């Protein structure tokens, strides 16, 4: 097996301005926020970003003016309301959006995983989602029944970023048996061209290979793996730690203005050399442990 363990800086260095990037996680779970802060530090711009239910990762990138186009099912802050910076950027015309409903986005991810240029659905008849996007959503006739169907173009991002629970140095990433599965991280990984994974913890391969069915991202699919404890902060990593309510409230408050969030980004991303410094800035591992939920090993 090939060793793929590296640093956040090195793993993300291929992502340059203008790249397309799929971002995993869903709602306040497993947002790859440590990776996103590194992209912000690296001053990457003009990204095409794809997501499932995106929250902090997308809004942080929007705040940093790193997104040119977004495609996905949702951007918001879950129970913290609309995504303030994403919203501001869309309303000001800086971010172009293309919406996909859930079956449509699922079709896009599965098409990529299956090596197909499209998959069919029949959800979006009559919806303006299809009307505004003839480039990626087209009506065609079923070759068997003749009935009208909608072809949804495959999602083919240059890079895919996922934050996971635990992995080995070969890039094999495992999930716990009991977990919150309300996301599309495995389908995102299945269809990825260049897959970069951050995990809470690197564990020995000997542990991984005892329970191979817990590996949801095989190392064979992975280009680089990085250990970033609390890598989803201020969002949660289910089974390990909860969302940081105080931090999120502060983020929302400071995001009321572009200046406010600029100061936030300077403080929590740009002024810091790396993820370790971010953790210190957030009070260090001792303070962050207050977010831990039972079960964190």
């Amino acid at each position: 097996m090939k060793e793929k363990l590296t640093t956040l800086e090195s793993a993300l260095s291929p992502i340059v301005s203008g790249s397309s990037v799929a971002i995993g996680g869903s709602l306040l779970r497993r947002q790859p926020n440590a990776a996103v802060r590194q992209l912000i530090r690296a001053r990457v711009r003009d990204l095409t970003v794809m997501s499932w239910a995106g929250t902090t990762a997308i809004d942080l990138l929007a705040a940093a003016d790193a997104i040119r186009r977004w495609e996905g099912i949702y951007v918001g802050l879950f129970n913290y309301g609309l995504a303030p910076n994403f919203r501001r950027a869309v309303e000001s015309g800086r971010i172009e959006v293309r919406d996909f409903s859930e079956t449509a986005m699922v079709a896009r991810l599965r098409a990529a995983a299956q090596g197909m240029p499209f998959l069919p659905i029949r959800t979006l008849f009559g919806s303006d989602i299809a009307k505004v996007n003839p480039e990626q959503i087209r009506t065609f006739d079923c070759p068997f029944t003749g009935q009208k169907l909608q072809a949804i173009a495959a999602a083919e991002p240059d890079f895919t970023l996922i934050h996971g629970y635990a992995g080995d140095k070969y890039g094999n990433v495992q999930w716990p048996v009991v977990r919150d599965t309300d996301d599309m991280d495995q389908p995102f990984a299945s269809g990825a061209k260049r897959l970069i994974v951050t995990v809470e913890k690197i564990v020995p391969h000997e542990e991984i290979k005892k329970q191979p069915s817990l590996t949801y991202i095989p190392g064979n699919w992975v280009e680089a793996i990085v250990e970033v404890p609390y890598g989803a902060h201020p969002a949660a990593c289910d089974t390990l730690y909860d969302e940081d309510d105080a931090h999120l409230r502060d983020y929302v408050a400071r995001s009321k203005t572009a200046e406010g969030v600029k100061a936030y980004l300077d403080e929590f991303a740009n002024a810091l050399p790396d993820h370790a410094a971010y953790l210190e800035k957030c009070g260090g591992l001792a303070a962050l442990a207050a977010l831990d939920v039972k079960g964190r090993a």
Partner: protein
Amino acid sequence: MADFTNNELITAYLSRQIREDDLCFVGVGTNGRAFTLAVGMPLAAVRLAQLHHAPGAAVYWGNLLEPDLSVIPEHFTQDTFTQWQAAACPPDTGVKCDMLARGRFDVSFNSAAQLDRYGNMNITAIGDYRNPKVRLVGSLAQPEHFAFVRRPLLLMDLDARSFVEKVDFITSAGHLSGGNSRREAGLSEGGPALVVTDKAVFDFAEDTREMRLKSLHPGVTKDAVLAAMSFVPLVPETIPETEPPTVKELAHIRSDIDPNRILLKV
């Protein structure tokens, strides 16, 4: 009258829409009043149906299929969801999408920023899509609900900004421009069935598919309803009162389902 709250009235009403063995979609998000509308009353309504007349009714909630609704925790952080017990927790959300497209859902609970005369809804953008006045959250599975669920139930507070003549963006195709237009667009029958608000209940006329006042909540006048809408719905000659909760239903809600007023809080 008034020995029950408006939320109790709505919850009991919704529960009566749920039939034995129905599979019901409930969302997970938001807080405050939006939580009550999107999560609290729907969960309470299904649980009430389970206890009252539909023991086989089930919920798909988040990615939990048939979650145990017998105990409701005080707070909903991530770990609350992680630890929630359920019959199944499929490997990813794609399974739920497949079940939607396959027509396995009977009921969904939906709400929107805008809803129009024909039950088209908008959670995507206010104003022009490419240059919006307000960018909303996107679409989630709301288009799927209107396309595939047998009886989508809308649950929204009546408000002239929300009940509009024509939505700015059709996220979910309801009855489109009425009549047969939904079928002509390629959608199956179905679409929004009922709109349950804090003041009244609406359905959609069988022929024109226009929104129609179906019942007024106890103490609410027709004029109060119309004043809270930007379009005039069909109004029948006589409008019944929304059937209030029974003593038994109230007892279930208060003692068994939501004793700490988590679900029906605001």
